[in-house]
Structures are given as C-alpha cells and as structure tokens.
C-alpha cells in the first residue's frame, strides 16, 4: 500500500491511496500463461492409441483433429485483438485461460470423438487468444524489459510443448489418459490466480468534495471510467507534494485506456450538461 498526494498542473489536487500491482505477480502470471500454450497439443499426441481405446476415432477424424490447432489458433488469434479496445487486455486473457481450463478438463472427460473435438477447439482457441494477447501484455507491463520477458515466454512455450510429451506415456500408464491429459489444466488455473484485475477507486478526496463531505456524504468504492483520465494526468503532468513519487505508486496508463475512459465518460458528461 502506498500513499501519495498529487497536484496536477490543471486545477486538481488529490490524494491517492493505491496498492501497486506487483510486477512480480504479473511476471508469474506470464510464466504460467506461457506454460499453457502448447501442452494441450502435445499431451494427447503421444497417447492417441489409449484415447482411441475409449471411443472410436476414424482416420479421417484423426486428420481433422490434427488440423484443429492451426485452425483454432488462426481464428481465435484473430478474434482476441478485437476484444481489446473495449475490454482491455486483462479480461480477454482471463477468458482465454478459462477456455483453456474448461477445454482441457472437459476434453479429458469426453465420451465420443465429437465432444473431444469440440472441447479441443475450446482449449486451443484459448491458447490462440493467449498467443495474440501475451506480447502486448508484456509490452504494457515491461516496456523496458520487453526482450528479456519475451525470451522467458518463448522458452517456456517450448517447455510447455516438451514436458507433456515426455510425461504423457508414463502418466497414462500410471493413471490413465483422462487424468494424464486433464492434469495440464492445473497450469491454466494457477495462471488465473495472480492475474491483474481492473483497478477500482477505493476512496478519493479533493477540494471539490468538501461540501459533500461536510454533509456526511462519503463516496463509496466504485469502478469509475474517469479514474483512468485522472490518474493519467497525475502520471504525465504532476508534481508530488508529499509521499512517494507517482511512478512508484501508479502503473503506466496506456493511451488505449485513456481513449477508452473518454469513450466511457463522454455519455455521462453529455447527460450531466
């Protein structure tokens, strides 16, 4: 928790109390997302005969299943960026991780080839979305270490490809193909935990609230689109009067978030006129 008092070069002066979103947590999240990105492909490949023993898979179906990864990657990798202007990067990646988790777990419970293929598309689609979303996420949180974090992420993709191949056969022999393929969903679940959720304003005070405060009207915690604008101004045009420096307390607010905040607050502004 950090506290700082900020005066901007506009007419605003406000007090910010915020929990800095830890870069370490984001890095852990990136690591676990990366570890998801190939296991859904390579885990079942080595043990296809065991899967075939549970329900029939024709050679044609096997060919189609082989085509699913590139197809899903292409389709969902193209769809994911469309979500970003409206929902930012965090919500789509949470959606993608949810898809990976549900797809992998659901697929391991399949009763026929149709269910297996459909749920494969779900988890592969989630992977396709992560493929497209991770580079901008790295850029957003590690603008100065883009190269280093990108190399961590790319090498972990290969770990995620290699490790399941290596372990698939012994795991299947020990606990069966369903547990063997399904167990990789645990990485998706872990990746969700440290993920950054959109910030909320807990409390704001400023001179323009004085009359309201005196009447005992204390604002409650809320999601306010205007907050991004306020914080972006604080980041770009402010002088710290006391406490920590702005950049120690606040994360960089990218232009895309500022545009979104303007889009979200314009209707309310027009209505209040």
């Amino acid at each position, binding site marked *: 928790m950090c506290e700082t008092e900020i005066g*901007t*070069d*506009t*007419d605003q002066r406000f007090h910010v109390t915020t929990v800095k979103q830890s870069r370490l947590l984001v890095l852990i999240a990136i690591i676990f997302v990366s570890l998801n990105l190939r296991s859904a492909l390579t885990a079942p490949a080595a043990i296809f005969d065991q899967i075939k023993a549970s329900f029939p898979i024709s050679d044609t179906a096997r060919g189609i299943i082989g085509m699913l990864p590139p197809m899903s990657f292409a389709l969902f990798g193209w769809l994911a960026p469309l979500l970003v*202007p*409206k929902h930012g990067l965090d919500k789509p990646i949470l959606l993608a991780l949810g898809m990976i988790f549900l797809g992998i777990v659901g697929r391991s419970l399949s009763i026929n080839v149709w269910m297996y293929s459909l749920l494969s598309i779900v988890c592969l689609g989630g992977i396709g979305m992560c493929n497209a979303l991770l580079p901008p996420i790295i850029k957003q949180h590690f603008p100065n270490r883009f190269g280093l974090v990108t190399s961590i992420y790319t090498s972990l993709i290969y770990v995620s490809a290699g490790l399941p191949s290596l372990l698939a056969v012994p795991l299947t022999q020990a606990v069966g193909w369903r547990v063997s393929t399904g167990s990789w969903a645990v990485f998706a679940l872990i990746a969700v935990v440290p993920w950054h959720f959109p910030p909320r304003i807990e409390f704001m005070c400023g001179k323009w609230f004085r009359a309201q405060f005196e009447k005992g009207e204390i604002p409650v915690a809320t999601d306010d689109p205007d907050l991004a*604008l306020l914080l*972006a*101004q604080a980041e*770009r*045009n402010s002088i710290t009067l006391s406490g920590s420096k702005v950049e120690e307390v606040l994360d960089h607010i990218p*232009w895309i978030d*500022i*545009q979104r905040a*303007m*889009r979200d607050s*314009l209707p309310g*502004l*027009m209505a*209040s*006129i």
Partner: protein
Amino acid sequence: MILTLAKMWYNASTTKFSSKNGAADWAIPQLPEVHAGLLDQARKAYLGEFVDNWVGKEKELASLDDHLKRSIEPLISI
C-alpha cells in the same frame, strides 16, 4: 462542463492533458465564431473575470456541446 468537454477534445486530439483554461485557448480558434464566443465566456466565468448568466442561451449552449461531442467522437472511436 463545456470546459471539461474542451479539455477532453484537446486530450483526444493531442494525446496531452491541459488545464481547462489552456484547453479553451487551444479550442477557441478552431471553433466557428458563434461557438467560440460562448466558450470564451465560459472560460472567463471560470477564471472569475465574469459572472456567468446562461439564461436565454440554452440553445446556443446545447449546439456548442453537440459540436464538441461530434469533434471528440471520431478521435476516440475504435
């Protein structure tokens, strides 16, 4: 409120932030004359140089708001 809109317009076109006064300075030369006069009045009232009285000007005010909104929208659309 008009000055807040002017600020948003400045922000959306330049990607920079400005004070209300600064945004008005920037916006006034770009506005049609009738709108410019009104924004200048709003700024003067804000700076305390002028006691604002908007009675009878609701229509012009609404038209200025609308003009600002239309100028901002294409800059922040997806």
